[in-house]
């Protein structure tokens, strides 16, 4: 069995285009998993190893996180490469859930950008210890010190550099290791030969100063180091231990640097992963005991205990469905029977593989803390597997609700079949991607987290499943909500031949602060017989599916029944369901309903000279400017803008700023639309209804 203290499950997360995939490629090369280096937008037409999807190769971005593993100086490192675009945040979040540590990559020119802030927030939410790596130190305008300052100011990290670059931009020669106090150079065609030298004379004073700062920061986590510093005898091991303790406590972030593209600093980063990021045994992970009302239980990491594993990613491989799992305790063996905690279904582990991007290696068993893939197991992403001895589920993951939808139509019958296959796969893989058939228009609707998110799925349908579809205009997912309490007292009566229907429902509806829907039964004296109470609940649930204003789902409503009447013969399940629907309709308009729209948090970053026009453009789109952060002729503008106003913004922004600004957006909240917009939406909905 593998020594768990030598296992590292790490993620590589960062802003788009800061070089994640290039860096991963180098890591695989130095750990001898691959024998040649390919670039992301490679001229050799091969593309980087981790960008296994064709679309990723073409666009030069990473969409689905591929998992791979490598060995480095006796340590087994499982790496999840994560996407850089915020539309794919669920991928990042899912990866972080199963990781023990992460490398946060930053561009030495762009610094901490909005996506890095999002990723950092996610890492903090999942308590993932991290190392920061300042990449692209060879680029014109590289300024690692500025980035370190931003890590402190913008991300509130106690960022402590443990290296110092020797030269910058085109003159980047190597790095000074502030712990060893040696200059490190990377020789050979691919930087594979490491040469240690004395620190160049012109950097000695600076290196001393920075080491001093490092010792100050690190000694906060180790009394042994503090004493040694006072006596002037700190050893490399003491410093590394203290940095490790600080990192694991999430109170210190060691900052490393280099250039993946120029093959500088990657081996040291791998040392950093082994030295400062936690082993699975050093991280507390919790499962929910389904037999004890979801009580939190710490998983043991012990390979001898009953097995608990989490399926965190599904992929449609060449040989069927591939399920990536992380084992939290126990051992997963080939031939074992495992149980899906959600469905209760049993499955046999036919094939167990270790993934290396899109190649794989068969293994017999996987110990606790390991990340491996299973073949032919039917499950959804986020499912927990056990060996049947326990009824645990790993804590549920935070899944945002889709905010945008598109109608898609297959061009022919063949595409129709393939589209269904593709949609079935995608919805299993990605919980933020949903699909349904609109009962009124009979159109297939897909919904997700942003334009690009849906765009990528439409492309994948075409490329991977050969499903050509026509795409409609994007639609915003509106909601309706009530703003005040309203009473109802409705009688449903039907006596037209056959058995009659009778049911009276009295009570009120009121806004619910948290949650979508709540049903409260306050009936006393049996005025509505007990067997018909669930019918009332069912009726209300049917009623909230479609609001009376624009037909959008109603959210945040509590339905309380406190009165009613029944008939010994004519009352039935359906009669009370219909009575509840009628009652809801009666109360709804009196409860002053409003239309809610998704509001996005938008961050536009670009040169300060365009600040005015960018703010103007956001303002025109009904945006509320929250604030600006100005630094070194670069400004980040943060605003809250309705999603319905953000279509086509990237084109507008490009023309406004000569392509020099970029933006990210993520869902923030639902808010009522202004009166004028509400009137327009209601008029449109009415027109549509008339046309039907």
């Amino acid at each position: 069995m593998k020594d768990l203290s030598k296992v590292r499950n790490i993620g590589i997360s960062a802003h788009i285009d800061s070089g994640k995939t290039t860096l991963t490629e180098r890591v695989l090369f130095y750990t001898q998993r691959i024998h040649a280096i390919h670039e992301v937008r490679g001229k050799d037409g091969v593309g980087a190893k981790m960008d296994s999807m064709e679309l990723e190769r073409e666009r030069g971005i990473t969409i689905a996180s591929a998992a791979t593993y490598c060995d480095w100086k006796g340590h087994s490192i499982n790496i999840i490469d994560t996407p850089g675009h915020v539309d794919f945040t669920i991928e990042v979040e899912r990866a972080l859930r199963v990781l023990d540590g992460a490398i946060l990559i930053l561009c030495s020119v762009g610094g901490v950008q909005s996506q890095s802030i999002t990723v950092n927030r996610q890492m903090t939410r999942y308590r993932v210890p991290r190392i920061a790596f300042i990449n692209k130190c060879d680029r014109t305008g590289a300024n690692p010190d500025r980035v370190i300052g931003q890590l402190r100011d913008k991300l509130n990290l106690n960022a402590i550099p443990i290296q110092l670059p020797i030269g910058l931009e085109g003159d980047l020669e190597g790095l000074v290791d502030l712990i060893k106090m040696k200059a490190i150079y990377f020789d050979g065609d691919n930087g594979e030969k490491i040469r240690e030298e004395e620190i160049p004379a012109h950097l000695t004073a600076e290196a001393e100063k920075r080491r001093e700062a490092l010792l100050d920061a690190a000694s906060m986590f180790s009394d042994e180091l503090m004493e040694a510093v006072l006596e002037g005898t700190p050893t490399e091991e003491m410093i590394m231990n203290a940095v490790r303790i600080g990192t694991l406590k999430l109170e210190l972030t060691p900052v490393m640097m280099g250039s993946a593209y120029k093959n500088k600093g990657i081996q040291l980063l791998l040392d950093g992963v082994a030295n400062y990021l936690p082993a699975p045994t050093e991280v507390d992970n919790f499962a929910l005991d389904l037999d004890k009302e979801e009580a939190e239980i710490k998983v043991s990491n012990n390979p001898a205990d009953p097995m608990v594993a989490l399926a965190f990613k599904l992929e449609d491989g060449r040989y069927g469905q591939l399920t990536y799992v992380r084992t939290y305790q126990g051992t997963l063996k080939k031939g074992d029977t495992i149980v899906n905690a959600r469905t209760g279904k049993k499955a046999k582990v036919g094939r167990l593989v270790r993934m290396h991007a899109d190649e794989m290696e068969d293994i017999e068993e996987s110990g606790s803390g390991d990340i491996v893939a299973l073949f032919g197991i039917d499950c959804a992403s986020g499912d927990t597997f056990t060996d049947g001895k326990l009824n645990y589920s790993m804590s549920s993951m935070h899944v945002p609700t889709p905010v945008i939808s598109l109608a898609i139509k297959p061009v022919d019958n063949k595409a129709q079949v393939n589209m269904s296959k593709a949609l079935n796969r995608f919805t299993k893989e990605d919980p933020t991607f949903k699909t349904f058939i609109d009962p009124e228009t009979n159109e297939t609707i897909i919904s997700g987290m942003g334009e690009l998110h849906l765009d990528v799925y439409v492309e994948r349908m075409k490329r991977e499943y050969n499903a050509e579809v026509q795409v409609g205009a994007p639609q915003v997912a509106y909601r309706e909500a009530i703003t005040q309490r309203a009473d109802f007292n409705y009688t449903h009566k039907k006596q037209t031949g056959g058995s009659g229907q009778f049911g009276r429902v009295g009570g009120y509806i009121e806004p619910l602060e948290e949650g979508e829907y709540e049903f409260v039964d306050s009936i006393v004296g049996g005025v509505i017989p007990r067997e018909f109470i669930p019918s009332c609940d069912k009726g209300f649930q049917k009623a909230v599916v479609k609001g009376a204003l624009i037909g959008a789902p109603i959210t945040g409503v509590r339905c309380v029944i406190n009165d009613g009447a029944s008939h010994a013969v004519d009352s039935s399940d359906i009669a009370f369901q219909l009575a509840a629907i009628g009652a809801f309709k009666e109360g709804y308009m009196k409860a002053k309903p409003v239309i809610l729209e998704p509001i996005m948090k938008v961050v536009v970053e670009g040169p300060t000279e365009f600040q005015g026009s960018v703010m103007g453009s956001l303002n025109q789109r009904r945006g509320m400017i929250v604030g600006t952060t100005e630094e070194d002729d670069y400004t980040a503008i943060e605003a809250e803008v309705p999603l319905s106003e953000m279509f086509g913004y990237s084109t507008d922004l490009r023309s406004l700023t000569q392509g020099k600004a970029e933006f990210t957006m993520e869902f923030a909240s639902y808010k009522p639309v202004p009166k004028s917009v509400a009137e327009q939406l209601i008029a449109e909905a009415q027109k549509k209804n008339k046309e039907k």
Partner: protein
Amino acid sequence: MLKKELIEKNPIRHLNVCTESNVSSRMGLVISRAGLGKTAILVQIALDSLLNGKQVIHVSVGQSLEKTRIWYDDMFKDIAAGCKLDNPYEVYDEIMHNRMIMTFKESKLSRAKLEERMNDLVYQNVIRPSCLVIDGYDLACADQQFLADLKEMGRAMDLQVWFSALSHRDDQRVSNSGVPAPCHEVEDLFDTVIVLQPAPKSECIDLNIVKDTTGVSKCGKVLKLDPITFMIKEGC
């Protein structure tokens, strides 16, 4: 409680930041040692303006946008909870449309830059502020000209400008009217100066209005600051 009542009962009315009788432009200063609540006072001054339907720009030097925003969220929550405001979410949404936060690195702040930014905002119809609060600017390093420039800008734009300044225990210099260093030599540029001091025999902090040339605020220790919530109140 309704918004109107909240405004009327808000103890900050003693500062007369934005009542009808108010002078349209004034330069104010809140000065104290570290940790006594300068930012809290500035945020409450800004919130008072916002509740009165005015627009506010909050300039934060060296602090992140998120942190500044949290100050507003927390203070508003405390105010709303304290007076059981009827419709806190609506009021919050309404006032936040009238506030904008700008964060700068110290070296970047100058009259020209601020004026350019504000003109941009007015031109783009984003915001037309009547109150500008500047928090975190190191007045020990500021030259008199910078402050005079800002005062002039405030006058030209009909703005109330409020600064915070950090004093130090070991610097005992003080002006005739009681304005501590580092602002003792530039006090003539400020119309109103509030010094925060721990109240004797109490855990509260005194808001000592040591100077007011506008005639709208009464000098003396009328107001206190709750050291736990950092809320301004009338007595301890």
